[in-house]
């Protein structure tokens, strides 16, 4: 039973690990392979600050809220383990700021210590009259992806550095199940007008005195188009750009100016911070995550494909819940192929 995962960002690698962990003992013939044209540190996941935080509303998509919760609880459970630092995982507290009162988010009971901001706290943020405080997690993919890669390599998973041009290319080669974790470029494998790039740009600075995340929101400009500051283990990420439909992965001087001015207004001490790096990436934006099976046929060949892409700006936030869901779909495929059925009694 050969399984090929296409894509080596947080979604691809975590799905590969989840599947291997759950099924390698049930299916002795299980062979898992990863195909990708970009590996860490060049994936979209690597550029993300890594803060666990879903969007403000799930638009009634309870499934995604459950996957978010699953991910948070899974990561929280790893906090006390010796692997936490290697995974790039740590707790962090911080602020969400608004110019007017807003409804509480669906994740308010998932994070720790969620509460409204007090008037004195709001004095720190002129221009904002309402906000939340909570403790959440950061998962830095610069560390997490190598950690996942090590776990996978220890398990004998093979990695291939190539750009897959079609499902057939992989399935025609004897692969039984293809897991499509291709993120923003999934449309190249199968057209998907719902999938659009949500271009973001960030500036990484040295500002070790900043111990809280600060996310501002402007209901008019939309998610991520308002300044945010997210401290990492080494650098602090400044951002606040979301451009729907923009495929440009080059840094923009205008966006740099927007981010810098807005973040320095939010935290004046940042003016003294040293800029270390600038990065642009394309969030794989979709009205909802595509996580489903499809039987793809081409001539005589057919392959089972599990799609797991379209996680927008919340890929890290939702990744483990989706990996588990993809693994469940894989389990269904195994049952259908009678590979994971209970052993026959010996007569």
């Amino acid at each position, binding site marked *: 039973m050969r399984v090929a995962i296409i894509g080596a960002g947080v979604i691809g690698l975590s799905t590969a690990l989840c599947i291997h962990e759950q099924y390698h003992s049930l299916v002795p013939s299980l062979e898992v392979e990863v195909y990708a044209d970009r590996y860490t540190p060049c994936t979209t996941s690597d550029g993300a600050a890594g803060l666990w935080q879903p969007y403000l509303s799930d638009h009634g998509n309870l499934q995604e809220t459950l996957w978010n919760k699953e991910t948070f609880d899974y990561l929280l459970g790893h*906090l*006390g*383990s*010796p692997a*936490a*630092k*290697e995974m790039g995982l*740590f*707790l*962090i*507290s911080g602020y969400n700021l608004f110019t007017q009162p807003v409804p509480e988010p669906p994740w308010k009971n998932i994070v*720790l*210590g969620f*509460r409204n*901001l*007090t008037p*004195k*706290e709001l*004095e*720190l943020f002129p221009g904002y009259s309402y906000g939340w*405080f909570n*403790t959440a997690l950061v998962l830095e993919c610069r560390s997490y992806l190598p950690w996942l890669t090590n776990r996978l390599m220890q398990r004998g998973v093979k990695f291939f550095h190539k750009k897959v041009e079609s499902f057939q290319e992989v399935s025609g080669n004897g692969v039984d199940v293809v897991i499509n974790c291709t993120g923003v470029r999934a449309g190249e494998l199968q057209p998907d007008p719902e999938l659009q790039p949500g271009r973001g740009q960030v500036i990484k600075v040295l*500002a*070790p*005195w*900043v*111990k*809280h995340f600060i996310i501002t929101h402007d209901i008019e400009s939309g998610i991520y188009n308002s300044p945010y500051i997210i*401290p990492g*283990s*080494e650098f602090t990420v400044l951002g606040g750009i979301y451009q729907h439909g923009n495929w440009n992965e080059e840094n923009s001087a205008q966006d740099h100016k927007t981010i810098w001015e807005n973040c320095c207004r939010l935290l*004046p*001490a940042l*003016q*003294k*911070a040293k800029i270390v790096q600038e990065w642009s990436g394309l969030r794989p934006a979709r009205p909802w995550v595509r996580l489903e099976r499809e039987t793809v046929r081409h001539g005589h060949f057919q392959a089972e494909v599990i799609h797991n892409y379209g996680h927008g700006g919340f890929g890290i936030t939702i990744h483990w819940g989706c990996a588990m869901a993809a693994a469940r779909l894989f389990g269904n495929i195994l049952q259908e192929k009678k590979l994971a059925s209970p052993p026959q009694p010996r007569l």
Partner: protein
Amino acid sequence: MAAPKVAVVGAGVIGLSTALCITETCPSCSVTVLSDQFSPNTTSDIAAGMLIPHTYPGTPIHMQKQWFKETFTYLFAISNSAEAAEAGIHLVSGWQVFKNAPKEELPFWSDVVLGFRPMSEAELQKFPQYRFGQAFTTLKCDCPPYLLWLEKRLKATGVQMYTRKVADLWELHSEYNVVVNCAGIGAHQLVGDEKLFPIRGQVLKVHAPWVKNFIRDGDGLTYIYPGIHRVTLGGTREKESWSLSPDPGTTKDIFDRCCSLEPSLQRAQDIKVKVGLRPSRQSVRLQREVLSQGGVKLPVVHNYGHGAGGFSVHRGTAKEAAHLVGECIAALQGSSSRAKL
């Protein structure tokens, strides 16, 4: 009296902040800081500088609260300004956890710090050996940066600073009109205050930049305070111990206790061990005194004995000391004008 000459003895957080307050309340004064130690070799440099007050049994609570509130307000403004990083002042959130119910549900300072509230059940799960907890956000003064920033501001107003070991306050009577005693633990010898005693504290300063929240055991003995570049792990409270040498057994004990609160600290690097002697007293000695010998008088303002709570109340006590200096000068000017009659 032209340009009254004021000497401040001591260059820790108390000495420097007192000197600064004197320049603010008495712009005509000529202020000089004298100390045998300057940053990074003061007791203040060892401390984490967390704004979490220590309770002085001999001082009225309302006064301690006033001192803390003034200090917090002052630093809050700096933390919110462009100078925050240079001054070493930053906000930090975290938890104070208790194995047994705390004596008071609401400490006197709970409405001064930000967002003070009991910890939720979910938050307490992270600390399986603890049954109660408080979550809040407070400020931290990182040293040396804060002391260096104070020194810079003092120099900008023309304050001179000299390395000098003052053996006796009286030796300053011919050069200065008023002496301010901010000698910290040094006051034990300098003015022979038997009520002042050291409480030895050993700490580890480690590289663990992923630790963003503070954690403190309500017993005050075990704590994890993330600073700008290092995390301070503590600690000990050894009464009457004058030893400034790090003890290796203590180092291991502190490390183990902190790792038990925050397991990821096992991966901490570059562990530096430091020792400081908290200048402890039942109450902060914040009062005027007049020394006299052979008809010559020397007004003194004492501002020492802040124990474990120096950073938490430094600005409040500095302002009060500056006020007392003002009173001394007014008294001197009054008597000198009487002498003219």
